[in-house]
């Protein structure tokens, strides 16, 4: 699962760090670090974290489980 956080928007409310602590963590008071490719076992938690984010800064890929593989 692919995740990206818009850290311009992120204000360190830390809701994600409570809801999916293995994926999102705060360094110090408000610097967010996260796993951009967490395992599918955390999917529900990550979706909850994305929904709970007060500034809606978390983007989770919604194109289904299959990635669109670029043919090179």
């Amino acid at each position, binding site marked *: 699962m*692919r*995740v*990206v956080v*818009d*850290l*311009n928007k*992120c*204000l*360190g409310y830390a809701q994600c760090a409570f809801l999916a602590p293995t994926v999102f963590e705060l*360094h*110090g*008071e*408000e*610097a*967010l*670090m*996260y*796993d*951009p*490719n967490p395992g599918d076992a955390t999917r529900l938690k990550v979706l909850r974290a994305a929904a709970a984010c007060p500034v809606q800064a978390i*983007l*989770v*890929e*919604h*194109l289904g489980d299959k*990635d*669109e*593989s*670029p*043919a*090179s």
Partner: protein
Amino acid sequence: MIAATKEKVADVVATFKSTGRIVIVGASLAGLRAAEALRKEGFTGHLTIIGDEAEEPYDRPPLSKQVLKGWVPADHTKLPRVREIDAEWLLGEAAVRLDRVNKLVHLAGGDQIPFDRLLIATGTRARQWFNPKEAALDGVYTIRTSNDAARLQEALAAKPGRVLVIGAGFVGSEVASVCRELGLAVTVAERASAPLVGALGGVIGKIAAEMQQDHGVDLRCGIGVKSLEGDDKGHVRRAQLSDDSVVECDVVLTSLGSIRNTEWLEGSGLAAGFWGVGCDAGCRAFDINGVVTDSIFVAGDIARFPHVLYEYQFLTLEHWDNAVLGAAVAAHNMVSLEADRWPHLPLPGFWSGQFGVNIKSVGVCPFGEEILFTQGSVKERRFAAAYGHRGRIVAAVTFNHAKWLDHYAAQIERSAPFPPPPAGFDRPRDMKPVPAEFPDPRVPTSLPTVILTGHDPTERGAEFQARLH
């Protein structure tokens, strides 16, 4: 008559939207988001994405943080897709030339890709160490790509005796922070008076310097690195500094800023050079004479566009959201009629996590001459400060005080007065503006210049004058 012409133009745009060919050169954040935006705008024609890296688009900010720490593998930062883009991907293929007359992009392998409209989003690359022999020593790294990060992460995981970071901009400072988290000894050498001075000025730089020292970084400012020396196996072991001191080190990160990838546009007749690619605020590229083109657009790190908030000065912004927002505007304008075009007028913003502090900024800090601490406490490294230019607020920076940033963003957008009215809460005792201490921008450079030629309107034009060395 006029109505008929209008209809015709609308028809042309509609036909283009359904059957045109768009080529995007650059397959990173701006290129990907532009492709998605084009489909969202209803473009159903042929879409080609060209990128010189073999990987599909990935996010770079985690590379100098989560990845180096060893938490996230370097190839795990691929960007989430927001919609299907049904594009032809030409990855691992560098564009080497643009033929504007025949509307072709030439690839390194010899292929020529035709386009009706082109988006240039080739971004930047890491500036390499000036001495190629020394740069080739084992243990000398730069960090820009996912491969760079993978190699450096491996080197840090091997517990080197000491890491030398050359250059204390954001990336260099973030890497120094990770080194300390990993328990590694680290020396940072910075030619300016303090870290982050170019972006945030000397007053904030002093605070950044204290943060580094408090975390055990051996910080050397006002110092250059003269040379890197290797052992007989060709692995870097020490660095000679400009004050004649020597640093013993097993890993060197050269973090010397970025170079814009515009070489492939040489000879194309576009306003492209070391400064980026000149364009209007609607992302349309300028030709070398500063005349706007109709079919070539620019987005991301290399787009140099005029910004109304900053006296219409041309800015390039190597910021994450500038790539995202610029891509959306460029894509929209590529498939829209003149009256429907959007301007790309973002309020610039960036962030950096280092030494447990979240540094965020809005506006263009170096545009200000003065700085005023408006909230919080410098001592606790939890504060907001505003930058002023001729009596108005033009930027703000926060250290662990991000929740206040929108307040300042709104003031900057309104060109509110500087010093700003005191916040109603958490005011520092001493609220006097002081010089922000940015380096003098008038230092001489040896960069190429543009000369004007011709006298008649039919001959008048600009030409590049080659670099002198």
